[in-house]
């Protein structure tokens, strides 16, 4: 018995490929790429889930190794930096746990985003798939990792008998912004890193520098009168729109404005670049 293609069951494959010279035609191709990916959400989910399962196949704790290593890092850094900064552990540890987990998501995502297409070279060259599918897979995979690390945050909050209150709900719009940004980062860095092989090391050093500049391990208030400078740092403002509500604070309006402006710039750049080079990606990987 063979699985015969049933009309409407197998992926419809009606190709009409021409070099898209016109601007409008390119935008339509991007939209089609996106809608094709959306239709393959089950594949996307399976790929992301298998990525995690594969990494920890055969290990006892499985993906909870992620949780454990984050917990160890938070505990050790928490003690050292609370001493260095002469801060109350009760106040500092929740801040650090949140910062490290959220930053971990961000930096891992940017790193993975560089390989959005180069890591799946074999797949790209053997079957036609919407390219944004690979970007969505990376976002989903990193969300799963984040979900495992949330356990650490919950544990710290319970340990410190903290309750962020209803304000924590305000981190949800920030999280939504993150998701769209994360997708845009993969769509932007994927083709760039496929074409120019020296971009990944550049990106990783930028992220490393940003870690120290973006109030991840130190508190923004420690800058005292210079705190306003942080408003121009996209890494900081994006971190803050999710982190502050979870600490029971309101991010300032300027932080939100900066986060939105940087995000809008990122989306535009990602969209325009992708629309322009989509047809070339298969030749670059």
């Amino acid at each position: 018995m063979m699985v015969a293609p049933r009309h409407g069951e197998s992926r419809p494959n009606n190709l009409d490929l021409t070099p898209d010279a016109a601007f409008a035609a390119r935008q339509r191709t991007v939209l089609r790429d996106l809608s094709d990916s959306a239709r393959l959400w089950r594949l996307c989910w399976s790929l992301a889930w298998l990525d995690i399962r594969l990494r920890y196949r055969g290990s006892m704790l499985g993906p909870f190794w992620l949780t454990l290593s984050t917990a160890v890092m938070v505990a050790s850094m928490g003690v050292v930096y609370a001493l260095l900064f002469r801060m109350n552990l009760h106040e500092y540890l929740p801040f650090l746990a949140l910062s490290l987990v959220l930053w971990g998501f961000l930096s891992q995502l940017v790193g993975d985003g560089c390989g959005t297409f180069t890591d799946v070279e074999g797949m790209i060259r053997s079957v036609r798939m919407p390219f944004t599918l690979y970007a969505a897979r990376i976002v989903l995979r990193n969300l799963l990792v984040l979900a495992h690390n949330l356990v650490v945050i919950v544990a710290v909050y319970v340990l410190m008998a903290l309750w962020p209150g209803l304000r924590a709900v305000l981190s949800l719009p920030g999280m939504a912004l993150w998701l769209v940004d994360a997708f845009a980062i993969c769509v932007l860095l994927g083709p760039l890193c496929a074409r120019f092989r020296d971009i990944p090391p550049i990106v990783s050093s930028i992220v490393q520098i940003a870690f120290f500049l973006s109030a991840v391990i130190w508190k923004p208030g420690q800058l005292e009168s210079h705190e306003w400078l942080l408003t121009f740092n996209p890494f900081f403002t994006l971190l803050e729109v999710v982190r502050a509500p979870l600490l029971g604070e309101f991010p300032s309006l300027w932080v939100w404005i900066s986060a939105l402006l940087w995000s809008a710039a990122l989306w535009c750049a990602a969209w325009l670049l992708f629309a322009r080079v989509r047809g070339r990606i298969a030749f670059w990987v």
Partner: protein
Amino acid sequence: MQRAAEAPPAATIDAEHVSVDFPLYHSSARSLKRAVFSTVSGGRVAADANRRVVVQALRDVSLSLRSGDRLGLIGGNGAGKTTLLRTLAGIYEPQAGRVRVRGSLNALLDPNLGMNPELTGRENIMLRGLYDGLTRSAIRRLEEDVAAFADLGEFMDLPVRVYSSGMVVRLGFGLATAIRPQVLLMDEWFLAGDASFMDKARARLEDMVRGADILVLSTHVPGVVLDWCTRVIWLDQGRVRADGPAEAVLSEYLGHPVSRTPPA
């Protein structure tokens, strides 16, 4: 299952004046420095940076295939056979011209077919089904079908990495031939190794090829072409050198007359 009765529209392939250029980025051309310099300085460095090697893999290729066509692509190494298959599959997009394909399509290009050796046989089958956009029940049928063909037993739930090479071949082959497309694009490796395949593999492949509306097969084994194809295109350095009935083009290509052996 009602839909199964409704026949899909006949498959077609139309390629009009298709050209595909392949940029070869060696280490320096990929460098960001070069690209930045070329925009900043204009002139000489730009000329340098643009001196990247571009292989014109396909030049002005036109072909049109209708239901029932069996096309063989012949030509030496680097003639553009695989590039043409990839272009028809929509993997490479043409820089000039137009490619239109109607009908479900399966391209057998890569011997491993994107199999992940770390995943179990069952997971690989599931992923393939998902790539093809199959429903849950269709994936279950796919799994049964491939399992029956590949005869893996309890190895189905072990990573492909631990399979014997024979098992990997059986799984890959069973998987590749399980989904019947209207348009079948095939690279020669798939038929070349027929000596090592069992009879049931050959029967399965023949069944799939017969079931396809359109076959495009790339090979340089003349016997394979005569067995499977009615029409042949001879590609030479990315151009169509000859296009016509299998025997005629093959005779021209080989430089001596050939004739179809009577079917066994």
